[in-house]
């Protein structure tokens, strides 16, 4: 800024926006240095552990899926346990188009997956979001269960429980061979997709729209009373969240080269919820932390204790529920604030 600008504006207005509370809002969306860390870590993983790229790709997909849930659950406060409906919707879109040779190009495939999931999200959201609390929770599960059963009944086309194997996916940009044998291509591709989706979500949550979602989460009745079209906002948010979950599902079908009923089941929906709660919901980076911790534990505990690894996870969840209601990130924030206060006091 040059020195002339503050002179032009009336002094009082300058001082108001200069108040720390105002500056906290005007500068909130700025990118902090530590926000580069997850992406640096991903690049480091790529360079240092080429053997773990398959694991890394799976991790990126779970992060994207959890991020989509965070938008609905963490920011707008939409209680859902049926998010696999959209993951599965995206996965089967990619899967069926590829299996029947209709469409195998990966990037546009993801766009189609997003579109399908968005339509499902919009249609179900228009009905579901008239309810709240436990009713809403049950209806989201019902939607997912209906889709799973419909999928199972249409087994002539969907392959039923066994699913659709050996999906042919065309090379990325027509150049880079794309199948599970090329783990590095898959990893970079998934990383690129996650980065774009993340940039989108980040923009959204810091926008005025995102702020109004937070308002809806914090006090629904008050949002009605300030004249906010609450249901329309929720439906839009739910649709966007569904589209992102659809991208995650499509990505999963592409990188695994197969899709089956597990893309739509309660287990998947519950897992992503656990990941988000573990990391910390409504925090943007909770999805990252949660996915890393969950998948790492699953991976390594399962090697050490193949029969009882879930016990370790269970204990961790109990600890989180007891001592860190806002997940690992929330716990970190609390500790940091305490440290900061002590430093300020001394």
């Amino acid at each position, binding site marked *: 800024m040059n020195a002339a600008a503050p002179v032009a504006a009336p002094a009082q*207005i300058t001082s*108001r*926006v200069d*108040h*720390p*509370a*105002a500056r*906290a*809002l*005007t*500068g*909130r*969306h700025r990118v902090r240095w530590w926000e580069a860390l997850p992406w640096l870590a991903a690049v480091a993983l790529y360079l240092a552990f080429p053997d773990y790229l398959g694991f890394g790709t799976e991790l990126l997909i779970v992060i994207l899926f959890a991020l989509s849930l965070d938008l609905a659950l963490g920011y707008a406060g939409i209680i859902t346990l049926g998010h696999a409906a959209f993951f599965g919707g995206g996965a089967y879109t990619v899967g069926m188009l590829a299996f029947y040779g209709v469409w195998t190009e990966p990037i546009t495939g993801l766009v189609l997956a997003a579109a399908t999931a968005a339509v499902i999200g919009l249609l179900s959201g228009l009905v579901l979001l008239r309810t709240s609390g436990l009713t809403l929770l049950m209806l989201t599960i019902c939607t997912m269960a209906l889709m799973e059963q419909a999928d199972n009944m249409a087994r002539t086309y969907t392959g039923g429980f066994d699913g659709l194997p050996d999906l042919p996916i065309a090379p990325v940009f027509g150049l880079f061979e794309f199948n599970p044998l090329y783990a590095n291509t898959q990893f970079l591709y998934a990383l690129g997709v996650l980065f774009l989706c993340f940039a989108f979500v980040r*923009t*959204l949550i*810091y*926008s*005025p*729209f*995102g*702020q*109004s979602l*937070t*308002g809806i989460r*914090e*006090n629904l*009745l*008050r*949002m*009605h*009373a*300030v*004249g*906010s*079209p*609450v249901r329309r*906002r929720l439906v839009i948010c739910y649709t966007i969240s569904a589209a992102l979950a659809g991208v995650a599902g499509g990505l999963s079908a592409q990188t695994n080269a197969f899709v089956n009923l597990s893309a739509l089941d309660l287990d998947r929906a519950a897992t992503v919820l656990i990941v988000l709660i573990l990391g910390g919901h409504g925090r943007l980076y909770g999805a990252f932390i949660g996915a890393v911790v969950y998948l790492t534990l699953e991976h390594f505990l399962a090697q050490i204790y193949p029969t009882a690894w879930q016990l370790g996870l269970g204990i961790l969840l109990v600890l989180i529920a007891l001592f860190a209601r806002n997940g690992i990130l929330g716990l970190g924030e609390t500790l940091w604030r305490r440290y900061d206060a002590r430093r300020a006091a001394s």
Partner: protein
Amino acid sequence: MTETRLETRALSRHFGALTAVQAIDFKLATGARHALIGPNGAGKTTFVNLLTGVLRPTHGHVLLGGCDITDKAQAERVKLGIARTFQINRLFRGLSALENVCIAVAERVGAASSMIYPAGWRTDVIDEAMQILETLKLTDAARRRVSELAYGRQRLIELAIAIGLKPEVLLLDEPAAGVPSAESHIILDALERLPEHIAVLIIEHDMDVVFRFAKRVSVMVGGALFAEGTPREIEANPKVREVYLGQSSQRSGHG
């Protein structure tokens, strides 16, 4: 004479066999300072809910500036200029005082549906919200979480959110409820500084507040309007004393 801003015609609301609000004809003029009093269960809050569109009337009409708004939803009525505060605080508890007001202002100026730019770029919204906090002497609380503020100041945030909507009609549902009497003057001071043209309807139990703030008083009993007049007339009305004031007999009986 001043013009009528808000009007109800034969407004009624039944809940099953119970008549909560019964054929109320009521007028609120531009710039009015009107109090609505009455014993608990008289239907005052139901009346406000009918005015704001939270409830639909069983019979009758609500008119704003001469236009029938009976069929308008709550959000539309807010856009037309009816704002309210709540008897029990309904704040965005986890957010800062400034953010609370910003949400209302952003909604009013139509910024709140934008997705592509950061909310922090709307310095006009933030500036206006800061200005509202300033007039309510809440500048020092702007950054604090509202759930951490003293109750009296939380009540002011409740008011600040409503002011952020730039209403023509402001409905205040017991603005001083739950505020310790030592702090209630800050609410009164704030009420007295409201822009003059706003038509204010205040529901209040605290007679000190009513007699200091209101120019006219309506008494509601059993869902119907029982009496209306200046504070002095109401205070002198023996029938009102009997059904309402009589219970605690003195003006200061409530504080």
